């Protein structure tokens, strides 16, 4: 044993490399796929709501807000009119706030219009357990009484823990519970748009 003991730094490096190799990362959507999905969602929203009347978009911080902005650009192109858009921070409505150890950063909620009687399209990047959406629904109700709230997500990865479903889905991605789905967007991540699935890092 003693004689075989290798120089420790080398062993550590090789070990880390092997672990990295085992952690597979797969790209599920690229820039063009994402843009097409957003365009389709914009069309579906307009079809279902018969135009832009009473429509508004609320993006969930951070990436939902960016996606809502992009959906709005598509709506503008199709209908000639953009719709009111807001940003929602759900931190204060989280159901696990008193169970987590690290203080989540609270950011500003920016909804400058009344939601009462509006058709609200809630936009987020990934739909997973449904708990974020539950928080968002609670928050939205505090802002008024919308005519309806509909949900648009770029990716639905399953594993719901609450009875929540999306009305508009960019792509359904079947995943296992120990995978991570990450939406990367130019505006928030400084990298080219893509959706990747990777094995969840060990804690």
């Amino acid at each position, binding site marked *: 044993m003693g004689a075989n003991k290798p120089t420790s730094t080398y062993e550590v490096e090789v070990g880390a490399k092997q672990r990295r190799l085992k952690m597979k990362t797969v790209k599920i959507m690229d820039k063009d796929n994402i843009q097409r999905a957003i365009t389709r969602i914009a069309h579906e929203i307009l079809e279902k709501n018969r135009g832009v009347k009473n429509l508004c978009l609320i993006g969930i911080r951070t990436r939902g807000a960016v996606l809502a902005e992009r959906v709005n650009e598509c709506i503008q192109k199709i209908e000639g009119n953009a719709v009111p858009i807001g940003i929602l921070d759900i931190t204060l409505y989280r159901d696990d706030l008193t169970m987590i150890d690290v203080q989540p*950063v609270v*950011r500003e*909620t920016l909804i400058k219009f009344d939601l009462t009687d509006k058709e609200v399209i809630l936009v987020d990047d990934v739909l997973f357990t449904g708990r974020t959406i539950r928080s968002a629904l609670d928050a939205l109700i505090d802002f008024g009484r919308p005519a309806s709230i509909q949900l648009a997500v770029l990716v639905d990865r399953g594993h719901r823990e609450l009875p929540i479903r999306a009305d508009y889905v960019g792509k359904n991605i079947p995943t296992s519970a120990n995978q991570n789905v990450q939406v990367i967007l130019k505006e928030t991540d400084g990298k080219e748009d893509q959706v990747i699935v990777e094995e969840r890092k060990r804690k």
Partner: protein
Amino acid sequence: MSEWTKHDLLDLQGMSKEEIETVLETAKSFKEISTRDVKKVPALRGKTIVMLFFENSTRTRSSFELAAKRLSADTVNIAAGNSSLSKGESVLDTARNIEAMNVDAIVVRHPSSGVPYILSQHLKASIINAGDGCRSHPTQALLDMFTIQEKLGRIAGLKVAILGDIRHSRVARSNIWGLTTMGAEVTVCGPATLVPPEIEAMGARINYDIDEVIKESDVLMPLRIQMERQEQKFLPSLREYAKEFGIDAQKLKNAKKDVIIMHPGPTNRGLEVSAEVADGKYSVILDQVTNGVAVRMAVLYLLLGIKR
């Protein structure tokens, strides 16, 4: 933003620039909540916060109470006058009894410096200092810094003048600690009897020339002359003080164009600040009160928001 680790808020002395920035940044997000129709978020649902006030207060107590309620916490008010303290119970015993009812935080104001510190040594609940003696009033200084940042866009490099009764002022001391930590230049000015020389050791400059101070400052903060703490004669007469050090339109003629006038309240109109100035275009006194709720919401959220 840096990770928050504090359990109590006792003082700004020893608080880092990053920690102060975290509070101010968080408060910015909370300000919007008070402008909603439904001014309530569920962040502190189920938490209990006790206001234990051994000294009179309107602004601070109602501000803390509204902040707690807007975060969905439950609040209890205890004023020293009609509590068991008048039956001879000690402060610590009172606080221990309150804690035995499973409260999460105690907001305390006391005429003696150091009471919040002592409570924090003996109790598990978070202790928030709402003013202790002449020593410290951290949330007031935080809301002052928030207001300065909101109005002037920055704190670092600004010249801030604190005027009047520095000797008895916990607001002055907390602001000196906080503002110098954030990189502002603090000058204190007032009658020599009310400006203790040791204040220079805290990092503030002393200048007795009120006209020069008004001319060079970005922020003017006249303090209330504390009648209840004038056990000795510090001033020949209030009228003389108003004439020499009171901020009025005449004195402000030499001030910077974008100067802001702050006051921690309650104001003695016509004494440290004239009515005309208190209601004038430079005054941000009511903005301070509005911001106070947001800053206290941020403090309560940071201290109580997560599992300990």
